[in-house]
C-alpha cells in the first residue's frame, strides 16, 4: 500500500503498529517466563514477570492514547479505520494475556515446589503451544497475512484439546493423592489461564483477518474441541 498524502498519518499508523508488536513481544516473554517459573521456581523470574506486566499495562495505555488521537485528528476510513480498530482490540487482548501470565507466575510462587515435576511439565508443554500461537498471530499481524491468522484461528482447537487432556491428567493426579489438591487447583487455574491466552490469540487472529480482508470471522464457525465434561 502506498503512503498517505499526509505523511504524518502513515508515520502514526506505523508507530502504532510498532508499539503493538513490542507489546506482543513482551506478552510472549511473560508467557514463557511464567511457565519457566512453574517448572523451575525462581524468585527473580517471578519478579521480572511482574515488572513486565507493569510495562505492558503502560504500553496499553499509551496505545489507547495514540488511538484516541488518531481518531480525533485523522478520522481514518476503510483500511485505516480497520487498522486503528484492530490495534485497539489487539492491545486489549495483549493486556489480558499479560494479566493471565502474571497470574500464572503468582500461582507458581504459591506452589513453592509442592508439586510433582512430571505434572508440571504439562504446564510447560501447554505454555509452549500457546506461546507459539501468540508468536504466529503476531507474525500474521506484522505481515498483515490473513491466511496465517486463519491458521492460528483454526489451531486453537489443538490448544483446547491440550487443555482437556491436561485437565483430566491433573484431576487424576489429585484423586490419587488428596494432599496434592491444593497445588492441583493452582495447576488447574494455570492451565485454564493458558487456555484463555489461547482464546485471546484467536481473538487477535480474528482481528487480523478483519483488518486484512474487512470480513468478520464468526467464532461460531471456529472448529472447537468437544466441550469438557466433568
Amino acid at each position, binding site marked *: *500500500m502506498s503512503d498517505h498524502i499526509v505523511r504524518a498519518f502513515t508515520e502514526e499508523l506505523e508507530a502504532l503498529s510498532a508499539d503493538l508488536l513490542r507489546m506482543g513481544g513482551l506478552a510472549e516473554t511473560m508467557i514463557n517466563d511464567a511457565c519457566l517459573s512453574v517448572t523451575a521456581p525462581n524468585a527473580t523470574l517471578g519478579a521480572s514477570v511482574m515488572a513486565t506486566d507493569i510495562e505492558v499495562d503502560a504500553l496499553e495505555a499509551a496505545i489507547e492514547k495514540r488511538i484516541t488521537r488518531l481518531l480525533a485528528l485523522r478520522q481514518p476510513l*476503510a*483500511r485505516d*479505520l*480497520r487498522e486503528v480498530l484492530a490495534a485497539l482490540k489487539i492491545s486489549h487482548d495483549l493486556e489480558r494475556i499479560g494479566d493471565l501470565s502474571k497470574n500464572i507466575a503468582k500461582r507458581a510462587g504459591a506452589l513453592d515446589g509442592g508439586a510433582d515435576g512430571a505434572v508440571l511439565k504439562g504446564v510447560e508443554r501447554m505454555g509452549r503451544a500457546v506461546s507459539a500461537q501468540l508468536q504466529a498471530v503476531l507474525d500474521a499481524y506484522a505481515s498483515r497475512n490473513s491466511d496465517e491468522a486463519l491458521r492460528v484461528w483454526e489451531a486453537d482447537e489443538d490448544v483446547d484439546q491440550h487443555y482437556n487432556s491436561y485437565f483430566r491428567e491433573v484431576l487424576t493426579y489429585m484423586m490419587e493423592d488428596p494432599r496434592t489438591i491444593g497445588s492441583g487447583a493452582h495447576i488447574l487455574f494455570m492451565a485454564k489461564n493458558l487456555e484463555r491466552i489461547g482464546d485471546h490469540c484467536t481473538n487477535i487472529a480474528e482481528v487480523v483477518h478483519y483488518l486484512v*480482508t474487512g470480513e468478520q470471522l464468526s467464532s461460531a464457525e471456529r472448529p472447537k474441541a468437544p466441550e469438557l465434561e466433568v
Partner: protein
Amino acid sequence: MSETDEQASTSGAPPKGPVKVDCRSVDVFYNDKQAIFDISMVIPDQSVTAFIGPSGCGKSTYLRCINRMNDTIEGARVEGEIVIDGVDVNDPAVDPVLLRSRVGMVFQKPNPFPKSIYDNIAYGPRIHGLARDRAELDGIVEDSLTRAGLWEEVKDRLASPGTGLSGGQQQRLCIARAIAVNPEVILMDEPCSALDPIATARIEELIDDLRQRFCIVIVTHSMQQAARVSQQTAFFHLGKLIEYGDTETMFTNPANPKTQDYITGRFG
C-alpha cells in the same frame, strides 16, 4: 471491457428501494474529448446517493447529465440512456425545461436570485404555473421554506433580499427553491463546499429529512459528508465509475484498491 469496467458492473450495489434513475452505458464527450466512459448505475428512490472522486473525475459532469444541464455547455454530447420512471431523458421528445422542473438542482455556491426571499421561491412555481392565485403561491412558499427548515428564520422578512442571508441560509433557500417546483429528483453539486461546519451540519440534516420524499444525488468532496448523508456511494476516477455500493461497505471495506487509496487519502 477493461478491468475497472468489470468491477464497476459487478460492484454496483443492488438498490434497497425502487429504482428511480437507471443509467445505461452513459458516455459524455466535450467536443472530441471523452469525459465519461460507459457508466451504468442504478439510483434508488427515497435515498441519498453520493458521488465522490478527485477533482476532474467526471462526477459533476455525470450528475449534470441527469437533468441535462450539460446541454448548456457548448460542445457537450451525451450518449447512452438515462431512464427516469421509464423515460429516457435524452429522448428528443423530452423537453429539457420540463425535465429540470422534475429534476431539481442545487449548486456548489449558494446562488439565490438577487430578489426577495419570497420571489426566490416563487419564481419556479410562477414560470411553471403551479399556483392559480396568490394564496396558493404563498402556500407553496411557506411549505418549501418549512421543508427546507428555513421558515422560522425568515418568515418575518420574506420581502428582504435573499442575498442578505448567511451562506448556510442561502443554500437552504436554494434547496427550498429547488423543492418548490415539486421535483422527484434533487441533484446537489457540492452543496456545502462554501459553508462552515455548522451550516454544513444543518444542510446534512436537511438532506436526511428530504430523503423521505425525494431521490437525492449529491456530489461531494468530503468523504465524511458522503459517509454521513448517503446510503449509496459511487467512486469516480478519470471518467470511470470505479466502485458503487452501499456507503457503509464503501467506507469500511471498499472492494477496489483505488477506492481504498482514495478514501484513506493515499491518492496520487
